[in-house]
């Protein structure tokens, strides 16, 4: 449990948010040309990092906007929050 600084609303309790998992997974440009292996990679395979991870969050019970977050999954410390489309910070 932690407090998230929503880039649109400011600091709110984590229970207002939902996590959308690993960030920066690129949607396939030509889905019809993907092999089964590539589909599996895109749909299911995850880094599931213990440590600093880039992930997507949604302020579900607030502004309902998506944004990105850099969080250490080993201690839930948040390193950075940035809007969708912005360049990921170097951590």
């Amino acid at each position: 449990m932690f407090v998230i600084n929503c880039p649109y609303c400011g600091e709110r309790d984590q229970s207002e948010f939902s996590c959308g998992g690993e960030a920066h997974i690129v949607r396939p440009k030509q889905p019809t040309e993907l092999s089964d292996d590539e589909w599996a990679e895109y749909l299911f395979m995850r880094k599931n990092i213990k440590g600093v991870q880039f992930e997507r969050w949604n302020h579900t019970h607030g502004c309902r906007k998506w944004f990105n977050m850099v969080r250490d999954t080993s201690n839930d410390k948040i390193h950075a929050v940035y809007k969708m489309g912005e360049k990921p910070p170097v951590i």
Partner: protein
Amino acid sequence: MKNKYSIFSLIKNAFSQHENWKQAWGNPEPKKEYEAVIVGGGGHGLATAYYLAKKHNMKNIAVLEKGWIGGGNTGRNTTIIRSNYLWDASAGLYDHALKIWENLSQELNYNIMFSQRGVMNLAHNLQDVRDLKRRTHANRLNGIDAVWLDTKQVKEFCPIINTSPDIRYPVLGGTLQRRAGTARHDAVAWGYARGADAMGVDIIQNCEVKGIKRNGDQVEGLDTTKGFIKTKKIGVVAAGHSSVIANMAGLKLPLESKPLQALVSEPVKPIIDTVVMSNAVHAYVSQSDKGELVIGAGTDAYISYTQRGSHDVVEGTLKAILELYPIFSRMKMLRQWGGIVDICPDASPIISKTNIKGLYFNCGWGTGGFKATPGSGDLFAHTIANDEPHKLNAAFNLNRFVSGDLVDEHGAAAVAH
């Protein structure tokens, strides 16, 4: 087995004030090389080593545990055992385990306190009723005992449940598996450790794996905090940390690790003699032999390796518990903890070879691995020894995420484990 536990050994040791009991397993330093190494000294890992030694005659093996055995999810779960899963593949897997549970205390010569007190799953809306009835029929077709209970029968089976039609999620019925129940989770790890140790398995605690050495497609050994260990077969049973180990071998798994919480109350006299689970309100409860209510909550909805979990999850669970059991309203909760569970997209486990020779994974048990401990160990041992899956775990291969042949138990199997 040397040092067999019996009434006679109990009497004999009573004369020496119980001060001369031998250690149940040793504390060896790792050898340079093993035939196979199991990474993870929880119930599943120790069971794997036990069956490798017992059924496949592999004696030169080691179990590496970064903490102490049974200190991870084996000692953190709510000890529920059942096999009432919807799909045929799951039914085969979990009932295989349940059948081993039924004789495990005898086999291990160690009291694991297996108690077939029944597990009841409640239905709170029309869809629950339909799903659970369907599951009851599927279970019976697979030879797994299951009965449907209407509201009156639920009340008779567990009188403290509030079956008033006026509550927010009224109880419309439930399923009951009488062969299901609980076991003492620590004893399962200890019993398997003792059994494996007696057959010559090295159980190495406080030994963390730091890297996996490969020569092309073949594993060659492990870098650990106690030095390099050479081996041609590595079985990884690291639960929430499976992805961490996989990354060391350059492998990605379809897993997300999340904290799952449980809590226990102050001890009270016997009040609930079964296990009651509810998917819709996400709460389940049983009573330990010490008298504590053992309550399971849900997972946090984000990846985390902190063995804590959020307060709001516990709060939601306790709200549901209080609505279903108003009698608990003044109970105090004593302890709360979290364990890191590795969740697969289809809520089914992976017991599989990988595309790296000699590297095997047993993971993805998510929120419900304890119940499968003996079966999981047995089938994983078979897979490692023969380099081929047993027919009972063939469906639980890693390749199913490529082929699309998922064993989708999400929402089907009362996944509020």
